[in-house]
C-alpha cells in the first residue's frame, strides 16, 4: 500500500479512495461483460459515472505560479494543477494528442513510412492537408514564398481541437515560449511570426500578449467541456485563457468582455478546492471525443454534427455516426428510408462500448490487450502497479490504421481490433474459406454495407471560389449539410485494397475524397492557399469576397460577367494554362501543375450487426461486384492532368462514364475474386473448346442424317 500511496498524490490519496478506484475498475469490467446486453451496459455505465466522480481526489485549480486561482484570479495552469505532485505533465504532453507530430519531425521516419517529402512531420502539425490546402511552415524556411502556416496561425486555426501542450508551449526548436531561450531565428521563424491576412506580409507574433496554451486536460476529462468556447479564445489568439474557456459550461468560470475569466466562488469548497461534482473529472466520455472526432453519442435521436460544432472530422470524412440509437428512431436530420432501418447506427455503440474501450491508454493495466480474446471483453486490471499508470498514463492512445492517414504513425494498429474481442473463425459458419476471407477482407467490408449519412466527396482547390475558399461537395445528401431538412440518402463505400497489420493486402470500405490542387514542381510541394488566392484575385473586398482578376473573369465568366459553379471548371487546356501563368506571375510559383488526388478514407465506425452485414456472396463475387463498382467523383474534374493515388501517378479515374468515376479495377488486380475475376484467354479458349464440341456434334450429326446413317 505505501507504494501506491506514494505514486498517487501523496497529500490527498487515501485508502478509501484507492478502494473506490478498484471498485471503478471492477465496474468497468461489468461494462465489458455487458456488451451483449444494452441494459447491463447502460446500468454499468451509469454506475461507472457515479463512481468516477468519487474516484478522483479533490483538487485545487492552480495558476502558473502554483497559487489557487480563486485567490490569484489568473488563468488555470494545468501544468501546476494536474501536473506537479500527481500526474507527470511532461510525460503526458509528450504524446500525440498534444504534439500532433511535433515530436516526430524526423525525415527518416517520414521516408520509412512513404510520406511525401514536403511534409515535415507525419502529424497534422507539419503535414500538408488537402482539406485546408495548407501546411505548417518548416522551421528552416528561408524563402517567404515557402512560408504558409506559422505555429501561431496553426494554433489559432487548429488549436480548438488540438489540445495545447507541446505544440502551444514549445517552439520548433524545443524552447518553451516566453522563456529566456525562446527567441526567433530570422525574420521568417514560423514559431514567432504569422502571415498577415490583409497584406500577405509575414509579421512577428506577440507571445507576451497571447500567452501559452498549456495542455487542455479539461477538454477530454470534463464531461461538460466546451470546445466551442475554447476555440473562440484560440482563434482570437488568447491562448493563455483557452483552458479556462473550456470550463465555460461547468459554472466554474465566467468570461469577461476583455477576454479574461473570473472564477465563481460557488463552484469551490470552503477550503479552496474545486467541488468534485462541479468539475466532475472522469475518463473521457463519448461526448469528449465527439467534440473533435465525429458524431458520437450513447443513444440519441437527434444528430447535429455541423450545427452544434463546426468541425467533425470523422463524420465529415467517412460519414460515421457512433450512436447506439436506431436509425429508424432518428428525429433529425432527415434520413431517407429510415423506416426500414430498424437497427442502430453502430452496433458497438448500441452495446454500450465507449471510445476508450478500444482506443485505450496503452499502459493502462486494466485495458491492455490480452492474448485471450475473451479477456478483452472484461475490464480486469492486471497485476501491474496502478500508481505508476496513474502518474504516467500514456496518452498515445491505441489506434487503428486508417490508410492513408499518417498521423501518429508509430502507434498504428495498437488498438483493440475486431479480432481482439471477436473470434470470427468460430462464427460465420455460412462462409466458406473463412481464413481466406478474413485475410483478404477487413471485417468492416461486410459490416459496413452502407453509410446512412453524408460525407465529403471532393475538395477542389484548383479553382478558388470568390469566398477565397475551395469548392467542397458532399455525397449522400441532397441539399445543404447545415439544413436539417436536407434529404440524407447515404452512400455506398468504395472498396480499396490496403495493407493490414500483418502486411496482408486487405480490401476495406472507404469514402473516396477527391482533391484538386496546384503543385509547384520546382519546389516539390503543393501550392499554398495564399498563393492560389494571389493568382486568382486582385486583392480582397471589404465584405470578405475576393474580386477575380480580369483575366480570370474573361476566361471563365459567362455573359453576365459572373463565375457561377458551372463555369468554375477547367474544360479546356487553355484555361489551365492561363491559371498556370497567373500562378507564376502573381504567386511566385516556379512550375505549377494542376493535380487530381484521390484519398480513400477508411470506414471504421458505423458498424452493422450480423443481420445487416453483407452475407450475399453474389454481392462481391457476381459480375457486378460491389468491390469494383464505380464511385462518383467530383463532376467538375479537369481532364488531362496527373492523377495521384497514394503518392503515385495512377489512372484510377474513368472519364468515359456519365460523370467521372473511380475505376477500382487497377487496384483490385492483386485479388482474384472468384466469380468476378476473369482470365480472358481462359474464357476464350474454354468456350471455344465447348463451342467446338457442340458444333462438331451438330455438324457431324447433320451429315450423318444427310448420309442416311441414323
Amino acid at each position, binding site marked *: 500500500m505505501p507504494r501506491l500511496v506514494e505514486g498517487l498524490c501523496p497529500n490527498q490519496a487515501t485508502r478509501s479512495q484507492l478502494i473506490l478506484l478498484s471498485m471503478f475498475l471492477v465496474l468497468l469490467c461489468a461494462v465489458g461483460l455487458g456488451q451483449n446486453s444494452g441494459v447491463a451496459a447502460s446500468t454499468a455505465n451509469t454506475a461507472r459515472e457515479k463512481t468516477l466522480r468519487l474516484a478522483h481526489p479533490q483538487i485545487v485549480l492552480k495558476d502558473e505560479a502554483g497559487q489557487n486561482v480563486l485567490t490569484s484570479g489568473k488563468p488555470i495552469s494545468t501544468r501546476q494543477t494536474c501536473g506537479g505532485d500527481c500526474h507527470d505533465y511532461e510525460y503526458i504532453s509528450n504524446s500525440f494528442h498534444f504534439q500532433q507530430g511535433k515530436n516526430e519531425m524526423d525525415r527518416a521516419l517520414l521516408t520509412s513510412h512513404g510520406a511525401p517529402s514536403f511534409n515535415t512531420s507525419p502529424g497534422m502539425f507539419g503535414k500538408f492537408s488537402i482539406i485546408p490546402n495548407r501546411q505548417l511552415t518548416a522551421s528552416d524556411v528561408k524563402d517567404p514564398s515557402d512560408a504558409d502556416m506559422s505555429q501561431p496561425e496553426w494554433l489559432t486555426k487548429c488549436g480548438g481541437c488540438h489540445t495545447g501542450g507541446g505544440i502551444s508551449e514549445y517552439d520548433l526548436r524545443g524552447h518553451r515560449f516566453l522563456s529566456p531561450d525562446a527567441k526567433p531565428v530570422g525574420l521568417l521563424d514560423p514559431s514567432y511570426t504569422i502571415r498577415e491576412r490583409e497584406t500577405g506580409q509575414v509579421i512577428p507574433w506577440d507571445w507576451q500578449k497571447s500567452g501559452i496554451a498549456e495542455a487542455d486536460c479539461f477538454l477530454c476529462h470534463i464531461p461538460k467541456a466546451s470546445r466551442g468556447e475554447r476555440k473562440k479564445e484560440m482563434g482570437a489568439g488568447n491562448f493563455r485563457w483557452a483552458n479556462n474557456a473550456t470550463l465555460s459550461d461547468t459554472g466554474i468560470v465566467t468570461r469577461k468582455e476583455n477576454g479574461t475569466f473570473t472564477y465563481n466562488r460557488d463552484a469551490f469548497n470552503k477550503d479552496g478546492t474545486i467541488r468534485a461534482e462541479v468539475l466532475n473529472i472522469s475518463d473521457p466520455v463519448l461526448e469528449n471525443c465527439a467534440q473533435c472526432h465525429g458524431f458520437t453519442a450513447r443513444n440519441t435521436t437527434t444528430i447535429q454534427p455541423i450545427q452544434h460544432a463546426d468541425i467533425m472530422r470523422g463524420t465529415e470524412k467517412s460519414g460515421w455516426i457512433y450512436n447506439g440509437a436506431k436509425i429508424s428512431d432518428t428525429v433529425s436530420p432527415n434520413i431517407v428510408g429510415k423506416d426500414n432501418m430498424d437497427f442502430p447506427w453502430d452496433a458497438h455503440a448500441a452495446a454500450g462500448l465507449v471510445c476508450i474501450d478500444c482506443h485505450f491508454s496503452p499502459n493502462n493495466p486494466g485495458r491492455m490487450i490480452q492474448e485471450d480474446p475473451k479477456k478483452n471483453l472484461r475490464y480486469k486490471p492486471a497485476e501491474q502497479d496502478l500508481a505508476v499508470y496513474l502518474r504516467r498514463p500514456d496518452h498515445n492512445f491505441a489506434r487503428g490504421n486508417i490508410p492513408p492517414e499518417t498521423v501518429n504513425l508509430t502507434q498504428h494498429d495498437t488498438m483493440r481490433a475486431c479480432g481482439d474481442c471477436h473470434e470470427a473463425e468460430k462464427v460465420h459458419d*455460412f*462462409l*466458406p*474459406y*473463412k*481464413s*481466406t476471407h478474413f*485475410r483478404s477482407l477487413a471485417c468492416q467490408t461486410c459490416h459496413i454495407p452502407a453509410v446512412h449519412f453524408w460525407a465529403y466527396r471532393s475538395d477542389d482547390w484548383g479553382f478558388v471560389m470568390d469566398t477565397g475558399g475551395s469548392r467542397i461537395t458532399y455525397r449522400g445528401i441532397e441539399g445543404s449539410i447545415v439544413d436539417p431538412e436536407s434529404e440524407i440518402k447515404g452512400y455506398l463505400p468504395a472498396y480499396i485494397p490496403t495493407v493490414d497489420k500483418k502486411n496482408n493486402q486487405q480490401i476495406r470500405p472507404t469514402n473516396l475524397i477527391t482533391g484538386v490542387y496546384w503543385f509547384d514542381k520546382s519546389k516539390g510541394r503543393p501550392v499554398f492557399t495564399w498563393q492560389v488566392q494571389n493568382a486568382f484575385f486582385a486583392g480582397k473586398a471589404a465584405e470578405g469576397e475576393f474580386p477575380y482578376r480580369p483575366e480570370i473573369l474573361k476566361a471563365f465568366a459567362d455573359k453576365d460577367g459572373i463565375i457561377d459553379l458551372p463555369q468554375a471548371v477547367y474544360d479546356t487546356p487553355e484555361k489551365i494554362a492561363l491559371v498556370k501563368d497567373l500562378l507564376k506571375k502573381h504567386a511566385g510559383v516556379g512550375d505549377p501543375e494542376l493535380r487530381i488526388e484521390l484519398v480513400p478514407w477508411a470506414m471504421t465506425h458505423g458498424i452493422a450487426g450480423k443481420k445487416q452485414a453483407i452475407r*450475399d*456472396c*453474389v454481392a462481391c*463475387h*457476381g*459480375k*457486378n461486384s460491389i468491390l469494383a463498382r464505380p464511385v462518383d467523383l467530383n463532376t467538375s474534374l479537369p481532364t488531362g492532368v496527373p492523377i495521384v493515388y497514394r503518392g503515385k501517378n495512377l489512372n484510377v479515374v474513368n472519364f468515359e462514364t456519365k460523370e467521372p468515376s473511380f475505376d477500382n479495377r487497377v487496384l483490385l488486380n492483386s485479388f*482474384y475474386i*472468384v*466469380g468476378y*475475376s476473369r*482470365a480472358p484467354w*481462359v*474464357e476464350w*479458349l*474454354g*468456350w471455344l*473448346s*465447348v463451342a*467446338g*464440341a*457442340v458444333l*462438331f*456434334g451438330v455438324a*457431324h*450429326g447433320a*451429315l*450423318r442424317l*444427310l*448420309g*442416311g*446413317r*441414323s
Partner: protein
Amino acid sequence: MTSTSPLYSLHERIWHWLQAVGMICLILTGMAIHYPDRFGIFGSMANAVRWHSWIGFALIFNGFLGIFYHATAEKYHHFLPRMDDFTGAAVRQARFYFYGIFKGEKHPFETDPRRKLNPLQKITYLLLLNILLPFQIVTGILIWGADRWPVTFSRVGGLWVLAPAHTLGSYLFLAFLIGHIYLSTTGPTPTSLLRAMITGYHVEEGKMQ
C-alpha cells in the same frame, strides 16, 4: 432383330455412372461458382462451393476405386494404347468418323469384352486420365486447401494461377463430355452404346438385321 453380347460388368457400369453424375455435378456447381449471379441453382454460391468440394472428393475416391478395380481385375489394358493406336489405327478410326460413318461403313474396330475402346478413345482417355484429370485434382485440391495450406497455395501463385487453370480444365472436361455424349450415338444404333452402358449388353454390329 439384333444380337447382343455382354460388354460391361456391373462394376464398370456403376463406376462409369458415378463418374458421369459426379462430373456433371462438378460442372454444374463449378458454373454456379464461376457465374454466381447467373447460375444460382444451388441456393447460394457458398452452397455451390461446399457441394463442389464434397463431390470433388467423392469423385477422387471413385477414381481410386476405378484404379483399384481395373488393376485387380486386370482390365487396365483397355486403356493402354499400342503403338499402332497412335498411327495407322488412329487414322483408320478418324477416317471412319469423318468419312466412313456417313457412307454407312462398319466401325473399323469391333468392340468386344477384350477390346472395349477404339484407338481414338484410348488416346483420349490416356490424355484425360493421365493429364487433365490429375491436373484438375491437383488444382482443385490446392484451391480447396487455400485456408489449410496458405503458404503452399501462395507459392504456386494463389488464385490468380490456380483458378484460371482449374477453370480451363473444367471447360475442357465440359467439351469432352459433350463430345463423349455425342459420340455415344455413333454405335450400331443411336442409343445402343448408351444401352450397353446401362444393361451391360452390346449390340453386335455385324449381326444386326
